[in-house]
């Protein structure tokens, strides 16, 4: 019931489910129920980057030379991404930490959220560089109807889960009348269902919703425009690709019943609803593409091609979580995007020109004197 920051019970955390078991007490990683989350943490830490490492001085000049409808495309995408990462920088922590039961998963959630805050800071870095008054852009995120429509769909599952967990933690199980919200039933199956749908909607957020923006950023960079921005987006895309694996693992572990048998039943019941979350998001993203190109397209990209890409990427993501694909587009209409999305040549600092994840201060401890025998000065 009530959340404790240090659960005094003695229990074996490897026997707990991912969520809704005991609150985590000791943050220990020597024994793990799902070692994959520890591996994701290590990978994410090896990806660490800072926005300030990317030089944006030529982007400012490029931006001023863009046509007005291209500036609209560029800024609208930035606003949308700012919204998505504002949500993602806090929500996994707020929604999932109070109910997580495995130390390795708890730390993955924190590591994941933290990396989203780097993304948010990078948008400020970009916006500061290209416009004189960032406030105009940030203010529009909460007033622009096209953006706020999206804010509702990306936050509603999180908000519902948070509301239910708050009730569960204070009142326990039962049906409660919440002023202004009506009666809300709290039971373990209802909580688990809210959780499952939340993870699915987060998977959609990171695996589909970002990709329209990514495509536009890289389409500018194909024309050698806004290349600093494209470098940052490459780093963000690398992080997001890892995050979507995290939610795919959670969804697949839940559906398999290996983690929590009750969750498998709920996953099966929710299958249609999850499919609908994917389809609805794809439709919204296609609408977004139409809004982006309302005053004109850009070279190499238009609303129709982008719409086909959304359908294609949605198929790829649905397949990854074991759902039947639902769109007719079976081929990537913009295959050049993969050369931009590939992360093995991401360069942020000169010392890592070839590899994107490296360990600092790596030494080879297995050397001995004889290794220098054929070494002459």
């Amino acid at each position, binding site marked *: 019931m009530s959340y404790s920051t240090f659960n005094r019970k003695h229990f074996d955390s490897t026997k707990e489910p991912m969520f809704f078991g005991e609150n985590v007490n000791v943050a220990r990683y020597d024994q793990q129920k799902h070692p*994959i989350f520890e*591996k*994701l943490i290590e*990978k994410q830490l090896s990806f660490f980057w800072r926005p300030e490492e990317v030089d944006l001085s030529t982007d400012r000049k490029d931006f001023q030379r863009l046509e007005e409808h291209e500036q609209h495309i560029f800024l609208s995408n930035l606003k949308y991404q700012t919204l998505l990462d504002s949500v993602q920088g806090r929500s996994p922590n707020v929604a999932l930490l109070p109910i997580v039961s495995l130390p390795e998963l708890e730390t993955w959630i924190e590591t994941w959220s933290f990396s989203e805050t780097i993304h948010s800071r990078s948008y400020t870095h970009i916006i500061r560089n290209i416009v004189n008054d960032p406030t105009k852009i940030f203010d529009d995120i909460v007033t622009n109807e096209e953006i706020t429509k999206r804010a509702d769909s990306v936050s509603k599952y999180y908000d519902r889960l948070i509301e239910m967990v708050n009730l569960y933690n204070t009142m326990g199980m039962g049906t409660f009348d919440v002023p202004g919200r009506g009666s809300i039933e709290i039971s373990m199956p209802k909580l688990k269902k809210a959780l499952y749908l939340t993870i699915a909607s987060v998977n959609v957020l990171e695996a589909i919703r970002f990709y329209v923006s990514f495509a536009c950023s890289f389409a500018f960079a194909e024309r050698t425009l806004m290349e600093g921005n494209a470098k940052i987006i490459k780093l963000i*895309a*690398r992080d997001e*690709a*890892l995050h*979507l*694996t995290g939610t*795919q*693992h959670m969804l*697949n572990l839940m559906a398999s019943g290996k983690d929590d048998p009750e969750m498998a039943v709920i996953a099966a019941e929710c299958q249609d609803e999850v499919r609908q979350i994917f389809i609805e998001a794809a439709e919204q993203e296609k609408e977004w593409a139409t809004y982006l190109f309302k005053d004109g397209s850009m070279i190499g990209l238009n609303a129709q091609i982008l719409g086909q890409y959304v359908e294609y990427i949605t*198929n*790829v993501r649905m*397949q*990854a979580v*074991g759902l039947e*694909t639902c769109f007719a587009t*079976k*081929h*990537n209409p913009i*295959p050049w995007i*993969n050369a931009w*999305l*590939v*992360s*093995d040549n991401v360069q942020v600092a000169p010392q890592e020109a070839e590899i994107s994840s490296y360990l600092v201060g790596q030494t080879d401890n297995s050397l001995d004197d004889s290794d220098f025998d054929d070494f002459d000065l």
Partner: protein
Amino acid sequence: MTSISKPKAPEKKEQVHRVLLGKKQILVTEDEPLLVQLERAGIHVEYQCREGYCSSCSIKLLWGNVIYPFEPLAWVQSGYLLACCAIVKSDIEIAFFD
């Protein structure tokens, strides 16, 4: 003075396997992951990370065996393979979306 020369390792016979994809047939070796070999054969495969964590290059494996020298971070659905890091170990048949 006698020189000791290391006995020559018996020349490794290159293992070649057939990959069936619809009506196409591609020959692949065990030296490299499937993805690069498909690309060299002119087949477009969706990819992103190329190191096993993003699952973009997941392809249906209808029959046959593949192995992963390093266990990928991505979840590999049963009946699928991850082209960027799978080494083909027998003749196989693969398929993209239905």
